[in-house]
């Protein structure tokens, strides 16, 4: 029988979705991605849980193999029109993602940003906002601090904005548009 890598199996995708939901509900909290093996990396695992043929996707820094992108089934497009964008944390974005509109703020991009580490790092952030009881501190390695400047310019007009999911090799963390970020 054909062996399907775990990240394409519905019950693993359900678990990874729940991690994403937990991460989005509690910004700055870390979650270990499930179903990873030698053939599938963390980026692909999260994309596999979210994407199908009804959304538009852009791998803006060419982080994935073309054969993997094909498996995601999503329509490929330019960064300005994508619902889901895969980006590298060391490359400062030079595009304007979709921010949604006043009547449809959900028609905005979700940015998956690949960083080198989420547990330790030279960038320390203090987070406040919905989902955070008082304050959440997180450390990130491999995220250009200009990313946060760009993010601020995108999320300053609530309800418009973008939602970020940061990923390293094993874990994920989310920064929805409502989170206020303070660089320590």
């Amino acid at each position, binding site marked *: 029988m054909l062996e399907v890598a775990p990240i394409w199996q*519905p*019950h693993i*995708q*359900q*678990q990874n*979705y*729940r991690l*994403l*939901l*937990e991460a*989005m*509900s*509690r910004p700055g909290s870390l979650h270990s991605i499930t179903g990873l093996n030698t053939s599938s990396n963390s980026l692909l695992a999260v994309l596999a*849980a*979210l*994407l*199908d*043929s*009804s*959304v538009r996707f852009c791998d803006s820094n060419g982080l994935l193999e073309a054969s993997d992108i094909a498996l995601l089934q999503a329509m490929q497009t330019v960064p300005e029109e994508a619902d889901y964008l895969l980006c590298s944390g060391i490359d400062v974005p030079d595009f304007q993602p979709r921010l949604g*509109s*006043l*009547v*449809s*703020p*959900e028609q*905005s991009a*979700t940015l998956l940003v690949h960083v080198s580490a989420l547990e330790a790092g030279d960038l320390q952030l203090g987070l406040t906002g*919905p*989902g*955070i*009881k008082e304050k959440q501190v997180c450390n990130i390695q491999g995220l250009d601090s200009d990313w946060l400047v760009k993010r601020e310019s995108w999320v300053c007009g*609530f*309800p418009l904005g973008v*939602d970020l999911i940061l990923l390293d090799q094993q874990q994920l963390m989310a920064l*929805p*548009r*409502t989170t206020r970020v303070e660089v320590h």
Partner: protein
Amino acid sequence: MNEEHFGFLDEYAKKEVRRATLKAVAIPGYQVPYSSREMPMGRGFGTGGLQLTLALIGRGETLKVIDQGSDDSVNAVNLRSFIEMTCPGIHTTCRTEQADLIQSRHRIPEKPLREDQLLVLQVPYPDALVVVEASEEKRKLLHGEADYSRLLVKLYEDIVKFDEITISHRYPTRINGHFVIDPSPIPRWDVPRLHQSPALILLGAGREKKIYAVPPYTQAVPLAFEDVPFRVENFSDEQGQRRSCVRCGCNSSFLDEYVDSATGEQVYRCSDSDWCNQQLEQRQGVDQAVEVVNG
């Protein structure tokens, strides 16, 4: 594969619900539209909550389903057995504290929820502005601009006519200082539980095709006026004594009013049946202990 597909919905339908919930959490209180699949039960019977639960639940998780606080009423029993049938490997419970997921119609459990729990509320009418604006297009713009002046005028008119705001359930509540939601037909009693809740609360309207959320630790403030503050149901009798449940004796829970068919008297019972059972067990436990001590 001969076994029935886990969770009834196909994976595309689940992914769409999942993407919508993530946006709903990221934009607290905003009603995210989704396609709302046909379910083997009528729209308006909790299909919004059901689709959320089916997209959320995984093997090994424990589910509680309640209807107006009760695990045993028709809607809860039907939804629970449907989920049990289509999601092999999940567990169900009546105990609030044992549940990972709680799907509820019109109540939030009395027992405070924890961070590791998730509440799904079934919603008949998701838009709090529908009473003042018939056009959805216009309502969406009012929501976007956080313009709730007409809703406040409606509440003010209530005060002029009746000396108080007459909304008993579905009380308009402002989430994170922007969107006002219809929190589903929960009584006023439950509204304060939305505020800074440790658990994530997801709301699903199947007929109206909307999903929205109150994230954990988020401001949820019922609309009111400085001089007419929000208040919850008052369960005091004519003498000003707090009424208690006729079954378990609890005098701190939300009570349902019944008429005793034998005596014609008004009696009150806890609306949350699991809460009532646990109070009763505790009291019986205390009674037994007292008996043991007294010999």
